[in-house]
C-alpha cells in the first residue's frame, strides 16, 4: 500500500477513540486491581452486565442509552458496594484470599454469563440511536459519533475521578487505602468503608463502560471475553494504580492495535498488543508509566 496521509491520520485518530473506550473499560479495574488488590477477572463481565441493564432500561423507556446508563449508575455503585462486602466477608477476611479470590471471580464470570444467556437468550442486543450512524470529519479525518461518545464519556469519567481522588478527603483516602491501610486507621477512617466505596466506584465505571459498549457494537452474554486480556494488559501497562497511566496506556494500546490492523493486517493486532505487554512484564514489571 502506498503511503497515504489520510490513512495514517485516520489510523491514529480511530486508535485514540478506541483507546478512549479501552480506558473507560479499564479505569474500574485499575481501582479494583491496582488500588484494592482485588483481581477482578470478571470485570469485563460486569461491563456486559451494565450493557444489558442499560439495554433493558433504554428499551423499556425509550431513553437514550447514554442517559439510561447514567441513571443506572447509582445502582451499579450499590451493587459493587454490597458485592465487595460479600467478597470481603467470604475471602479477604479469611486471609487466604489470593487463589480462592481469583477462582471466585472466575466462577462469578461464568455464573453471570450463563445467567445472562438464560435470561436474554443467545441473540445479540443492540440499541439504535440516530447518532450511532453519523460521523463528522475535520480535514482528512473522520470522527464517527459511535466511537466519539464513549471516548468523551471516558474523558469525563477520567476528569471526575481524578478530581475526586485529588480534591476530596474521601477520594484521597480511597487512593491511599491500597498503599497504607494502617495510616487510614490513624486518621480515624475505617478502611473497610473506604474499600467498599472504592469497589462501588469500580463497578460504577464498569456499568458506564457497558453503556459505551452498547453504542460501539452488538452485545451478547459472552462479549466480555474479548476484553479480559485487553483490560488487564492496559491496567498493567499503565502501572496498576495510576489513572493517568491507565489512560495513556489505553490510548497507546488502541493506536497500536489500529495501526497494526491498517498496515500489517488485522490478524496480527492482538499479537502485537499482547506481545508489548509480555515484553513490558519481562523488562519493566512495574508498568510503563509507574512512578
Amino acid at each position, binding site marked *: 500500500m502506498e503511503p497515504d496521509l489520510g490513512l495514517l491520520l485516520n489510523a491514529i485518530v480511530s486508535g485514540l477513540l478506541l483507546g478512549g473506550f479501552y480506558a473507560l473499560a479499564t479505569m474500574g479495574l485499575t481501582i479494583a486491581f491496582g488500588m484494592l488488590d482485588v483481581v477482578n477477572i470478571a470485570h469485563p463481565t460486569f461491563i456486559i452486565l451494565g450493557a444489558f441493564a442499560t439495554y433493558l432500561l433504554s428499551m423499556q423507556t425509550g431513553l437514550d442509552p447514554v442517559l439510561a446508563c447514567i441513571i443506572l449508575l447509582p445502582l451499579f455503585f450499590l451493587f459493587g458496594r454490597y458485592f465487595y462486602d460479600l467478597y470481603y466477608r467470604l475471602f479477604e477476611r479469611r486471609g487466604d484470599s489470593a487463589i480462592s479470590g*481469583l477462582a471466585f471471580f472466575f*466462577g462469578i464470570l461464568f455464573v453471570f454469563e450463563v445467567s445472562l444467556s438464560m435470561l436474554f437468550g443467545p441473540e445479540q442486543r443492540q440499541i439504535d440511536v440516530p447518532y450511532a450512524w453519523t460521523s463528522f470529519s475535520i480535514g482528512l479525518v473522520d470522527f464517527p459519533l459511535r466511537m466519539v461518545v464513549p471516548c468523551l464519556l471516558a474523558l469525563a469519567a477520567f476528569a471526575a475521578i481524578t478530581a475526586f481522588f485529588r480534591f476530596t478527603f474521601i477520594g484521597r483516602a480511597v487512593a491511599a487505602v491500597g498503599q497504607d491501610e494502617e495510616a487510614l486507621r490513624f486518621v480515624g477512617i475505617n478502611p473497610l468503608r473506604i474499600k467498599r466505596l472504592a469497589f462501588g466506584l469500580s463497578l460504577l465505571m464498569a456499568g458506564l463502560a457497558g453503556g459505551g459498549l452498547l453504542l460501539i457494537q452488538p452485545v451478547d452474554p459472552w462479549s466480555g471475553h474479548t476484553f479480559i486480556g485487553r483490560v488487564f494488559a492496559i491496567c498493567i501497562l499503565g502501572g496498576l494504580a495510576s489513572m493517568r497511566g491507565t489512560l495513556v496506556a489505553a490510548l497507546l494500546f488502541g493506536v497500536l492495535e489500529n495501526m497494526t490492523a491498517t498496515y500489517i493486517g488485522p490478524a496480527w493486532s492482538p499479537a502485537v498488543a499482547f506481545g508489548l505487554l509480555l515484553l513490558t512484564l519481562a523488562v519493566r514489571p512495574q508498568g510503563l508509566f509507574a512512578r
Partner: protein
Amino acid sequence: MLSEVISPHLAAGRNPALAGARRFYAGVAAVTLGIFLAFHWVGSEYLWFSSYVVLQYVVLATAWNILGGYAGYVNFGSAAFFAVGSYTTVLLYKLGIPSLPLMILAAGGVSGLLGLGMGYLTLRLRGAYFSIATLCLAVLLQTIITNWDFLGGSRGAYIIRPDVSGFFASYVEVLFAVILGLAAGSVCLARIIEKSKLGYGLAAIRDDEIAAEASGVPTLRLKLVATTVSGALMGMAGAPMPYYATFVEPASAFGLSYAVNAMAMPLIGGLKTWLGPVIGALILGSVQQVATVTISSALNLLLVGLLLIAFLILAPQGIMGLLRRRGGRPS
C-alpha cells in the same frame, strides 16, 4: 527430559517413605489395570469416550496443581499448553509421522519448553501478574496458531483415526488406554514431587516466598522446574485430543472451559496434595459428563460455576480439607 530435571531433588525425598511409595505405585497400577479391564469387559464406546474426557481432566488438573497448588502460582493459560500439545500432534500428523507415543512425547517436550520459557519471562512477577501474563500468553499463542496455515490455521485440521485390530475393540479404546496411562503417570509424578525436596521447596514458596528465598531455597530454579513439568503434562494431556475429536480448530482448542476446569478441579478437590485434583477432576468431570446428557441446557454450565463458588465459600480447603477436618476432629 523430565526425570532429568526432577531427579536431583528426588533422591533425598524418596528414602524415608520407600515402603509407602511402593504401596502407592502398586495401588495405582492395580486401580489402572482394574479400570481398564472392567471397561474392556463392558465394551461401550460411550463409556470410553466420556471417561476419556474425565481422565483428560485428571491429567490437566494434576498438572495445574503442581504449579498452582504446590507453589501457589495461578495459571490462567492452561488452555494454551493443552492446545500446544494438540497442535504438536497435528504438526506431526501433517508431517506424516502419525505415531501417538511420539506425538505425546513431542507434545510434552514442546509444552515443557514453553513452560520453561514462560517461567523465565514471568516468574519474577508477583502472583496476580503472573496469572495475567499466562492469560496474555494464551492470546498470543492462539493468534500464532490461527495464522499458521500449515496447521490448518483458522480453517481447522482434520485427523483420521487409524484402524485397529487385535485386543482393542476400536481406536477409541486405544485412546482411552493412553489417557488412562497418562493419568496414572501424572498422578505418580505429582506424588513424587509432593514428597520430594522440590515439593517442600514449592510449599515454602507458597507460604512465604520472601522468607523461603532468605532461608536459602533456590526459588527461581524450583519454580522453573514446576512450570516446565506442569506445562509438559498439560501438553501431553492435549496430545491425543485431535484423535478424540478428529477435528481441531483454534477457537475450541484454546477454549475457556479447559482453563476454568483445570483451575476449578484442584480447588474443589483440595490444593495441597496429589489426591485433591484427582478427586476434583473425577467429581466435576463426571458431573459435567452426566449433566451434558441429562440437564443438557445452560443450567449445566451454571451448575459448574455455582459448584465452584460454593466450594470456595463453604470448603476453602476443598474436599480433602473436609475429609481431613472430619478425620482430625476426635484427636
